[in-house]
């Protein structure tokens, strides 16, 4: 009797823990940081074989007349120390990889240029219970696997939306800048033109001043 009660208590706790872990694996983080030279963020991956996906976009600052953004470098380092993923000189990209081991992963942004950049990034760690997890724990139904797969698909849609939103923000920034430049530079051009032509006239008048008239006599 005593042992059965103890077993039931343990089962309850185990179920609660499993449910807690199932609810826990939705790791989402979407933030912007300013990168002066090197900025690293760390994210913990709970299970080996989890899919780590994400994206980052460099928020545009006013480039004066470069045609394209110089871009930043992005590196992902595993807890063992080897580089898992690396992108160079991009102004925004998506990434996805399967975590080779569990532990603390380091996501680094390196800015090779002197102007500080602002990077908006999103990292998601997704876990789907595998056959091994199903066999290990009798409280996990196959339906939990399906639900986890559904949740991961929805998360990928959300990730895509966040990426598009960040890209749209950058595009909007460029648009606003173009609009301001058109107005400012056109009005400036008209004023400069008027000024240049009147200065020309004044100069020619001075050239053919009184001295010439006197010489002609």
């Amino acid at each position, binding site marked *: 009797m005593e042992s059965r009660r103890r077993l039931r208590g343990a089962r309850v*706790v185990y179920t609660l823990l499993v449910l807690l872990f199932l609810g826990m694996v939705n790791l989402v983080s979407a933030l912007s940081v300013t990168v002066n030279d090197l900025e690293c963020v760390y994210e913990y991956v709970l299970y080996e074989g989890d899919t780590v996906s994400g994206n980052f976009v460099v928020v545009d600052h006013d480039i004066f007349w470069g045609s394209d953004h110089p871009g930043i470098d992005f590196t992902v380092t595993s807890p063992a120390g080897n580089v898992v993923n690396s992108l160079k000189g991009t102004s925004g990209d998506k990434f996805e990889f399967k975590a080779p081991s569990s532990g603390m992963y380091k996501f680094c942004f390196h800015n090779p240029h002197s102007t500080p950049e602002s990077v908006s990034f999103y990292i998601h760690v997704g876990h789907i219970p595998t056959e091994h997890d199903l066999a290990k724990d009798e409280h996990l139904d196959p339906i939990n696997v399906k639900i986890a797969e559904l949740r991961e698909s929805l998360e990928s849609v959300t990730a895509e939306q966040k990426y598009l939103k960040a890209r749209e923000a950058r595009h909007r920034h460029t648009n606003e800048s173009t609009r301001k430049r058109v107005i400012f530079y056109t009005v400036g051009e008209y004023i400069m033109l008027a000024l240049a032509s009147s200065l020309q006239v004044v100069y020619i008048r001075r050239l053919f001043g009184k001295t010439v008239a006197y010489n002609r006599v």
Partner: protein
Amino acid sequence: MKLVEAAAVLLVVVVVAPAVRALWVDLPRTGTKCVSEELHNKVVVLADFHSFFGQNDDVNHTVLPSLSVKVTSPYGNNLYHQEKISYGQFSFTTTETGSYMACFTVDSEQNGGKTVTVGIDWKTGISAKDWDLVVKKEKIEGLELELKKLEGIVQAIRDNMNYMMSREMDMREVSETTNGRVARFSIMSLGICIAASVSQSLYLRRYFRKKKLI
């Protein structure tokens, strides 16, 4: 007694779990490190943060660093401001569209020399929803709760898409206006150039005639 032990384990897991779940950022010894996110109106934001010395959270920490945390809205309003704390939580609902920034500063008078790491768990929108409240109110559990969460995510995706469509429409209008303006202003500038040169020539001809040089 087993239940008490179990409850203790559960409590530890619940307390430790957010620590594991967060995004960690290194803090510089001097100066402020800020993280921000661009949000639109009426979004619920829920954030947990905790700080510790060193790079790993495994070690039992007896001394925690003291930070100063400040959260500002895009128009400069102060949403949360606390000095000399190591961990905490803040939440707010956005009222303005723009970039919301949370800044962390290490207090300089404590023992500098060790790196300070802050774990930030920043949740917006549907991730910030309190599911315990829904469970209590509607008395659902297990699979039904999971499916309800999925339904919430789908609704959030749809709302996001509608919002992005309206933003795209605004941007398209600005683009088309700029396009019209470029054409108009270029032709006008050509017209002004011709007018300026013609008026120059006419004026100089009149001037030279007056001066009896022509």
